[in-house]
């Protein structure tokens, strides 16, 4: 047993190949590689965008051109060659589908391989799914039902066309173009994404869900998501993704903005499974995401994420607690394996009085991976009685992996209460032996123990998503026993 944990487990984990590595064969409409003003004009033209959006992009491009890629994160990687990436790729289909039957069988097959049958999802769970293959939305469902309630759930491009006022008002209001290198890049070249608006006082009756995936080799993926919950409304939003196996690094730099107006609540859940690279750490997705939400008075934003993928992850879903009594939550499980590197965490910015934030972070490192938690809790001068509770646990599966915790606290108000707890533990040989003595295989035992360790976070996910997340954890960590 001891030997198993120390050596064989380590080996098994390294042998774990990416299960969803496949490439589908849907023709794509690509533009030349590289990035300059002409390319941006081309993207904008292809998408028939209004002038104001082109201006927005061009300004963002200027800002980006003057910025340097950040290097402070606890990760090492080869900097993407930004001039060798294709910045736009759409499946070559001119017409949108009217019904599910019209959807390309090949695409359905792809979804099946993802293990997420859209049909099942629709029928069994009542999830409205906006499936984004590469950069353009190809299937939207449940639109009418949501429409009756005044809920808008559509692709970002549709929103630009049909709800320009909302887009203009809120796009960039949480994450300005100048925020950081990747956000600026995204603002210049984003192709599509999702848009969601919940009207005043409406409780969205179903989980809204978008599956993203990267499909075209060498295509950067620049998604843009904007969720607006108007006063007193509620929405639970799910985002999940897997990517096909690839040789070259794929860049992913998404921007997600959440706006929770007075008394509104947004629950945003992510299960993320980008291709992490092979055993040597070759290939794999670079995931540089900027996610941030703003809470007005009495509003609440809760981020839940399960991260198992990417070669390099750089991601800090954050909350700006602007309004009094607003609440921010961050629940995270991050698994790293082989040569994966994750630098993830959250920022809780307390501006209003009686604001409250909770951070629960569970890191699991296997192989030779590096898993870092970086959290910032900032209490501003006027944030009287602000409270924060942070708990950061790390679980190590091998002796060669690493876990780091970097909690930063900046407190400018003495009435604040801040609590921080951190633990690091090695997966228990005793626990594994105990499970196996009951007839449970090594694989299942690891999966049981890890899922138990992550329970506080998994419990935050909607039921169907939790099941999927558990499977993902198992896939990322089970050894190929033999």
């Amino acid at each position, binding site marked *: *047993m001891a030997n198993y944990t120390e050596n064989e487990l380590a080996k098994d984990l390294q042998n774990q190949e990416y299960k969803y590595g496949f490439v589908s064969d849907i023709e794509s409409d690509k533009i030349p590689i590289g990035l300059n003003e002409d390319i941006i004009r081309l993207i904008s033209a292809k998408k028939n965008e209004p002038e104001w959006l082109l201006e927005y992009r061009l300004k963002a491009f200027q800002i980006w051109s003057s910025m340097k890629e950040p290097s402070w994160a606890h990760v090492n990687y080869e900097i993407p060659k930004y001039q060798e990436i294709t910045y736009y790729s759409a499946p070559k289909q001119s017409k949108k589908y009217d019904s599910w039957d019209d959807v390309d069988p090949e695409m359905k097959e792809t979804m099946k391989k993802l293990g997420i049958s859209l049909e099942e999802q629709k029928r069994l769970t009542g999830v409205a799914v906006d499936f984004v293959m590469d950069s353009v939305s190809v299937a939207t469902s449940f639109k009418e039902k949501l429409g009756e309630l005044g809920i808008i759930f559509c692709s970002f491009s549709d929103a630009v066309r049909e709800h320009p006022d909302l887009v203009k008002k809120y796009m960039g209001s949480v994450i300005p173009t100048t925020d950081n290198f990747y956000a600026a890049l995204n603002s210049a070249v984003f192709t599509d994404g999702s848009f969601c608006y919940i009207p005043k006082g409406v409780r969205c009756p179903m989980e809204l869900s978008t599956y993203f995936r990267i499909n075209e080799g060498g295509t950067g993926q620049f998604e843009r998501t904007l969720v607006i919950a108007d006063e007193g409304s509620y929405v639970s939003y799910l985002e999940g993704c897997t990517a096909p196996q690839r040789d070259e690094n794929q860049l992913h730099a998404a921007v997600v903005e959440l706006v929770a107006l007075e008394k509104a609540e947004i629950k945003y859940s992510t299960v993320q499974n980008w291709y992490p690279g092979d055993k040597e750490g070759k290939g794999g997705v670079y995931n540089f995401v900027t996610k941030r939400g703003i809470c007005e008075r009495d509003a609440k934003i809760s981020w839940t994420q399960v991260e198992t993928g990417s070669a390099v992850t750089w991601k800090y879903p954050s909350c700006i607690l602007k309004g009094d009594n607003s609440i921010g939550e961050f629940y995270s499980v991050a698994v790293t394996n082989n040569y994966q590197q994750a630098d993830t965490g959250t920022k809780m910015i307390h501006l209003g009085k009686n604001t409250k934030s909770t951070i629960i972070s569970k890191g699991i490192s296997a192989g030779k991976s590096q898993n870092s938690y970086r959290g910032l809790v900032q209490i501003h001068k006027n944030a009287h009685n602000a409270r924060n509770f942070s708990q950061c646990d790390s679980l190590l599966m091998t002796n060669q992996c690493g876990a780091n915790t970097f909690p930063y606290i900046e407190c400018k108000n003495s009435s604040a209460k801040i609590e921080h707890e951190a633990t690091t533990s090695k997966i228990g040989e005793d626990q594994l032996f105990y499970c196996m003595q009951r007839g449970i295989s090594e694989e299942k035992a690891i999966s049981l123990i890890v899922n138990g360790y992550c329970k506080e976070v998994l419990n935050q996910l909607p039921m169907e998503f939790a099941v999927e997340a558990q499977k993902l954890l198992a896939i990322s960590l089970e050894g190929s026993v033999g």
Partner: protein
Amino acid sequence: MIKINNLHASIEEKEILKGLNLTVNAGEVHAIMGPNGAGKSTLSSVLAGREEYKITDGSVEFDGKNLLELSTEDRAREGLFLAFQYPIEIPGVSNVNFLRTALNEIREYKGLDAISAKDFMALVRQKTALVGLDSKLATRSVNEGFSGGEKKRNEIFQMAMLEPKLAILDETDSGLDIDALRIVSDGVNSLKSKDNAIIVITHYQRLLDYIIPDYVHVLFDGKIVKSGQKDLALKLEEHGYDWIKEEFATRK
């Protein structure tokens, strides 16, 4: 049922079992007693397949198979059960989920279908009652925050759920209050049949008033140095181990 022959096992270069012999037949109850550090828990760990222990000599036959060649989980699936002296906590994993996983793995090994949720819950109800385990404990995380006695009771509950051929109870009586001792013993007795066998490891003859052994063995310095019947336990209770040690020393 199990035939242990000249078993030698060591840990970190230190020999703990030094030529142990023991045969247990179906339908029998054997008690193993012996001073602290004699190697009782080592024996149970070695039989269960804990890999830290190196087996340097000897053989173990379990139900006609070479036990030492089986993996830990296959030994369990073949019907070997160990009630731990110090049960392990598994945070976040509910007792029922843990047991359902275990039960289904064992069933799969035997070529049986997975148990339905309904049948499983019925089984849980029946077995919690049998060992007097608070049904709330069945849904809590495995052993997490359980009292010492509750942990021991939970071990017997698991035994009742998994219905092993050979159960090794390592000091299950320690930590149990007087009533619990009786209830747990009754539970164990009701699981006894002509087709299975039980080895109880204990320091106290009191347990043997409830679970009546067919044989009592004394394990000392890595070997079974004396075997007898129930009266041997009484004698040990009265006189301690000194006379055995002396006998053993002179034999050397």
